[in-house]
């Protein structure tokens, strides 16, 4: 069995993985860059190893440093989390070549699925429907135009090595095609060092629905149902839920079987996700496979009860799956909101900085997976996601109202966050009815970005509070340190003789 796991990651996912290790009695090693000395994962792990300067390219992305840290601390396994090296086949190979367990699939599975074009081919062979489009990488304009003519507009141009919305372009008109093609290629080159692209039929009114799978090294594969991830902004998921509001039991069974077939086709091991596009007529197409844990895995955990990180570790240790397909069911409804350090009122500009205060929501059906704390300064180098808020309800309605009250309880001071924006989404009638596709944010732009109504009383009270804070500050300046950090404030009234109460 695995006794010590090094987590090759940071932030909320590192903390989340450590939690499961703790519960399994497994030791943990954190790695950290210069910017992350105060990060919660460093404090929370049993051990912590410094691996370099702040930019990821010099720390979290340096395979050799991670492996060296694992060897130094005697870790017998490495969990890559998501992002960073989690879908890097060479890293998986390097780890295993040092006789360390890589908590993830075999490198070959990563490679096959990592290349979108080889993935398409394999899926087609495995009987999993794919979106009509190119079957080979495209590097020339002529070739691209030929493909365009064969599948017809609209099309989506995608970076072959891509992910996270980078190098993607949607084209509706013939005249925009070549410009979009070239900008996608240069963006792809800059982001991934590879300008190969591919072209796909663009599905109108698409739903992004993914299936969670678990596969062990003994050939057992199960799925843990779907996650609906259509609420996206700039191709980044911001809200996920399970079950999907548009799913039917028949479709779930069928797509689940296809997801299992997809995993089997690459001899998958571990936790993985098969992403599908689903149109309004419930036609579904394989989109890609994420060969790692997903950000949104907690909603699946909540409705199935399965701790996915624990299953990943068990599988990596060579155990058989702890669950059979027929034992699993979806109990109730779970929603996840991703909380970002960004300013929705200012074109979602990143908002790193010092957390002055944080109050997390609590109570029945609420889970927060975060990593920031009062006094922590969010670095500029990494992802702006600071936490995930997950709510559960017996029904979808209950999960939504619980999310709304939880977002209202969530206070983060010092930086701007997406909390208010998420609240607004929860109140859009189409969201409440479950009627949405990946265009939801654009469709409801007007309401989502409307200025808030004036609240004259609130404004007045806020001004008074600012004034009291000013007076308190003035008093501290005059009188020195306040004796007690939280003592009742006393107003320094400059005209005390005039006070007539």
């Amino acid at each position: 069995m695995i006794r010590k796991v090094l987590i090759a990651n940071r932030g909320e996912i590192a903390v989340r993985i450590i939690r499961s290790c703790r519960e399994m009695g497994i030791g943990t090693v954190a790695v950290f860059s210069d910017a992350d000395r105060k990060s919660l994962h460093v404090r929370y792990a049993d051990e912590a190893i410094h691996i370099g300067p702040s930019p990821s390219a010099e720390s979290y992305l340096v395979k050799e440093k991670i492996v060296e840290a694992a060897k130094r601390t005697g870790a017998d396994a490495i969990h890559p989390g998501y992002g960073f090296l989690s879908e890097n086949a060479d890293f998986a190979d390097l780890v295993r070549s040092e006789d360390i367990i890589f908590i993830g699939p075999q490198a070959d599975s990563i490679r096959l699925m990592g290349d979108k074009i080889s993935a398409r081919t394999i899926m087609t062979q495995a009987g999993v429907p794919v979106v009509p489009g190119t079957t080979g990488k495209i590097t020339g304009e002529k070739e691209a135009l030929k493909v365009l003519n064969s599948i017809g507009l609209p099309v989506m141009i995608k970076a072959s090595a891509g992910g996270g919305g980078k190098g993607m372009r949607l084209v509706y008109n013939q005249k925009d095609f070549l410009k979009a093609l070239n900008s996608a290629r240069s963006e792809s080159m800059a982001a991934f060092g590879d300008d190969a692209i591919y072209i796909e039929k663009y599905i109108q009114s698409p739903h992004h629905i993914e299936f969670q799978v678990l596969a062990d090294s003994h050939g057992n594969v199960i799925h843990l149902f779907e996650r609906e991830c259509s609420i996206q902004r700039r191709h980044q998921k911001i809200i996920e839920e399970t079950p999907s509001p548009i799913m039917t039991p028949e479709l779930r069974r069928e797509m689940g079987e296809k997801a299992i077939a997809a995993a089997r086709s690459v001899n998958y091991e571990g936790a993985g996700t098969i992403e599908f596009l689903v149109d309004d007529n419930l036609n579904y197409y394989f989109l890609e496979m994420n060969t790692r844990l997903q950000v949104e895995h907690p909603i699946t955990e909540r409705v199935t009860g399965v701790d996915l990180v624990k299953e990943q570790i068990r599988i990596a240790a060579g155990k058989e799956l702890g669950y059979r397909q027929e034992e699993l069911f979806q109990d109730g409804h779970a929603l996840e909101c991703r909380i970002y350090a960004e300013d929705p009122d200012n074109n979602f500009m990143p908002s790193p900085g010092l957390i002055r205060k944080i109050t997390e929501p609590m109570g029945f059906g609420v889970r927060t997976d975060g990593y920031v704390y009062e006094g922590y300064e969010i670095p500029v180098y990494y992802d702006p996601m600071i936490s995930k808020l997950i709510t559960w309800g017996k029904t979808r309605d209950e999960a939504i109202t619980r999310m709304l009250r939880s977002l209202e309880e969530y206070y983060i001071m010092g930086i701007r966050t997406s909390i208010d924006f998420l609240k607004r989404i929860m109140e859009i009638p189409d969201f409440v009815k479950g009627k949405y596709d990946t265009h939801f944010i654009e469709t409801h732009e007007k309401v989502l970005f409307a200025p808030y109504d004036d609240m004259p009383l609130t404004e007045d009270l806020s001004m008074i509070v600012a004034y009291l804070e000013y007076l308190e500050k003035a008093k501290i300046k005059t009188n020195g340190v306040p004796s007690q950090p939280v003592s009742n404030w006393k107003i320094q009234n400059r005209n005390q003789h005039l006070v007539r109460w």
Partner: protein
Amino acid sequence: MYYMSSIELKCGERKVPVEIIGKKDNRLHVRLGETDYHLDIIKVEKNIYSILLDGRSYDIEVAATEMKNTYTARYLCHSYSIEVLDAETRYMRSRLSALGESQENTISCPMPGKIVKIPVKKGDKVNAGEVVIVVSAMKMESEYKTGKSGLIKEILVNEGDVIEANMALIVLE
């Protein structure tokens, strides 16, 4: 016969005088502009005041900003930037405007981050709307444009530098 407070509060375009008329324990009588408020108000946490007014309960967050005498206050989804104009502030203001000084020739970036690129150099002529600096934060690159045309007088940062929010980065003539 009230003593007139010399302090004003500014919120957006609104500017109103404020005066504390009386206080006893956590009861506060305050006059804001024309309105008298009788509040039950108490600081419950660092940066949070609890107010009871006509039986209703309000938790208002407040935090000092980097700008002197300027505070951000928030109640649910409503945020306000509030400046306390005391005698000192007003004096500084009038002096600044008397000197005709303006900081509008300075280009800054409202978010902290790392300078990825400075596509201009000292002495360049730039036109309004031209990109003068590219800043990266949290895996996102943002381009910052100059709002007016002119000559680049000085570039205060280098590519690769990590910058604070609202730092002066480039000065135009």
